[in-house]
């Protein structure tokens, strides 16, 4: 996991630092925006300005006035619009309290505010853009292929049924049962925390869509065998056995034992 984290951080951070240096050297904000490649989703000028204002109010205390990063939070230069959207739309940011991992919680910004902040951060340096509607449309995707890809790429952390699992030192891969297709896609392209980045070179767009379809299947499909017990596997089954089932059987035994007296 360390190895993956290191690999994904290096190019981005290096790029971020490089661009940060550019900002300082060039002495101008405009210089940076001009280097923005056309692929990155670009917001309108007013949206970027709104975003900057919101950013300065809510995020700069930790991420720095120019998003250069502080002791309390990493740089966002090069983090990309997708990362901001994912972090804020799942309620992870703004961070409430330092901990092993930023938990998903109540979202405090409106969708247009989140988009404004995303546009602002995207305007600082290129990074993964918010996925388009076509990208996250999984209507034609192959669920079965998605299942295979999910078990290969995601199940080792998020559990086969997407219920989440523990990682080391209090970190965890969260349950995917509430995630929207957009959040899932953004998580894959930005790799929050200990999660690896699944760039298009590792998982092509169609493959990502297949995964979206499979997670959707996990979220929506009814449980053919009855109550699913949280789909947590044998531990939940064992717990149910030793509480409910055993109580019923012992109660029956006691009842029959008493009846004959």
């Amino acid at each position, binding site marked *: 996991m360390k190895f993956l984290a290191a690999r994904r951080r290096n190019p981005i951070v290096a790029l971020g630092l490089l661009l940060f240096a550019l900002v300082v050297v060039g002495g101008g904000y405009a210089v940076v925006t001009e280097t923005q490649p056309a692929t990155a989703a670009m917001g309108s000028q007013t949206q970027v300005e709104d975003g900057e204002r919101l950013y300065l109010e809510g995020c700069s205390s930790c991420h720095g006035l120019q998003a250069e990063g502080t002791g309390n939070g990493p740089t966002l230069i090069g983090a990309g619009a997708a990362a901001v959207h994912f972090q804020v739309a799942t309620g992870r940011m703004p961070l409430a309290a330092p901990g092993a991992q930023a938990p998903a919680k109540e979202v405090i910004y409106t969708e247009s505010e989140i988009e404004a902040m995303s546009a602002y951060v995207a305007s600082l340096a290129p990074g993964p853009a918010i996925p388009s509607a076509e990208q996250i449309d999984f209507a034609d995707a192959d669920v079965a292929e998605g299942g295979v890809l999910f078990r290969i790429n995601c199940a080792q952390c998020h559990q086969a049924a997407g219920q989440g699992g523990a990682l080391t030192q209090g970190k965890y891969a969260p349950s995917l049962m509430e995630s929207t297709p957009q959040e899932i896609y953004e998580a894959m392209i930005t790799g929050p925390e200990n999660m690896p980045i699944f760039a298009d070179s590792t998982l092509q767009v169609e493959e990502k869509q297949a995964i979206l379809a499979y997670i959707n299947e996990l979220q929506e499909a009814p449980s053919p065998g009855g109550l699913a*017990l949280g789909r947590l596997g044998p531990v939940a089954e064992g717990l149910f056995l030793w509480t409910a089932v055993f109580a019923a059987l012992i109660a029956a035994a006691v009842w029959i034992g008493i009846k004959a007296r």
Partner: protein
Amino acid sequence: MSTSSPVETAGAATATYVDKRLGSNRFLGRNLGKVFPDHWSFMLGEIVLYSFIVVLLTGTYLTLFYKPSMVEVLYDGSYVPLKGVMMSEAYESTLNISFDVRGGLLIRQMHHWAALIFVAAMVVHAFRVFFTGAYRKPREFNWLIGVALLTMALAAGFTGYSLPDDLLSGTGLQIIRGILQSIPVVGTWAAFLVFGGEFPGTDIISRLYAAHILLVPGLILALITVHLMMVWTQKHTQFPGPGRTNDNVVGYPLLPVYMAKAGGFFFIVFGVIALISGLVTINPIWIFGPYTPDQVSAGTQPDWYIGWLDGALRLMPNWETVVAGFTISWNIFIPSVVIPGILFTGLALYPFLEAWATGDKREHNLLDRPRNAPVRTGIGVMAITFYGILWIGGGNDLIATAFDLSINSLSWFLRITLIVAPPIAFIVTKRICLGLQRRDRDKLLHGYESGRVLRLPHGEFIEVHEPINYKELAVITSKTDYSPLPAPEKTDADGVKNKKYLIQKIQHKISHFYYADDVKKPTAAEIEAAQHHAAHDAMLEAPLHEYEDADQISTFHGGVLHHPGMPETNAEQVAQQENRSTT
């Protein structure tokens, strides 16, 4: 027979018909009247038996559709999220049972739930036998058969868990391979032998299948038969109670009472299993997907009865040594071979160890109350605590996420608890048992506390003690007082050296450990003295009832109003009463 109903006549005719050919009447006459003692905890063995019957029936149905083959096929069944996926025939056929065979999913779930209940009921049944001392002479062999059954049940469960060849079962097998390989010297070779070459190979499923449907159930069936025959011929033990002794059995005849109860109970167990299996999913293999060695899911766990071994593996620190170029994996060998080895050997030998250590060679048909064997009860609770912590360790990842804990700190906490908690559990349990013994002793001496508080005329409050009833008396007095074995002599009276001195010394020490704190039952003299005392107490409180001029006492319950002339102290009261009776 003059007034017999048509049914009775028909029954008698049938019995005669059969008897003429089999000579069965004498056998039945002798056995159907056999008496069984009655207690709900004696039904635990029955739960085991009945769930096993359900396992056999449902398992037979499953064999009609299951294919024990590791040949890769393309799935084309009705479960869409797996359509077109490559998988083994074993997994495919299990999917088909779940989605395309009529009633298949229900039967699969019944088979699995019944199997879990089977092992669980067995464990609880063994607890009952252990904590009541039912394994003592003459039933030690039946205890051994029980331990063999427990081992076989684990084997049955594990082989069954592996058959669907889904991601969970394959991961389990991979762990088994690791365990085999960790055995020093022969490990690698053993793993090759079991899997028929490299893991996972193409043989293991069909081998497990043979074990799961033939070998293991065959052995279980044979052992159950012997087990029950021994219960039959040795007669069942009974709890102490009025009229129950070491040499009789008080209870109900097999026919009709016990048969009716047992038959009814069978249907209840069957019904509970069917109900749960109809309502609650177990092992949704379609979610886990087919097994491929390069995949693993978070939260992969074995069924509950293997959970403690998984926990032992998870809690064990990562120790390895390299000897002459070979790695010895203590980290696997100790938790999965050494610890279960010690636990099962200890379990099997316990009846013999206890008999030796305490020098108790008598037959026991009357059960012990757990409190009357504090050390045994303590050892039992200690073992359960140890087991329980390993078990919790097996679910450490789920506990960590459920309670927002770090899995690393949780593991360290459990490691320490695993060593510290069992001795504490022993001491606490033993103390509680001795406390209960003392309370029993007090009950014999002073009766039980009725909860009725009385205020004496001079203001003192006393709680009224009532004598215990005959049932409780029989139960409490059933206790056998034990004393430690005497310390051995180095030389006997003739100055001959005692060759067994050392071993007798150990025996003496252990027996001391078992019995030194035993709270002895009160002697007859003590009881008499106490009763005398009680009679005196009763006399002190008696006057309140015995005032002739009752109108002087306004309220009785809840307090006494003082009136002029009323005695102020006990002594005055008694004196006044004695005066009155003499005049």
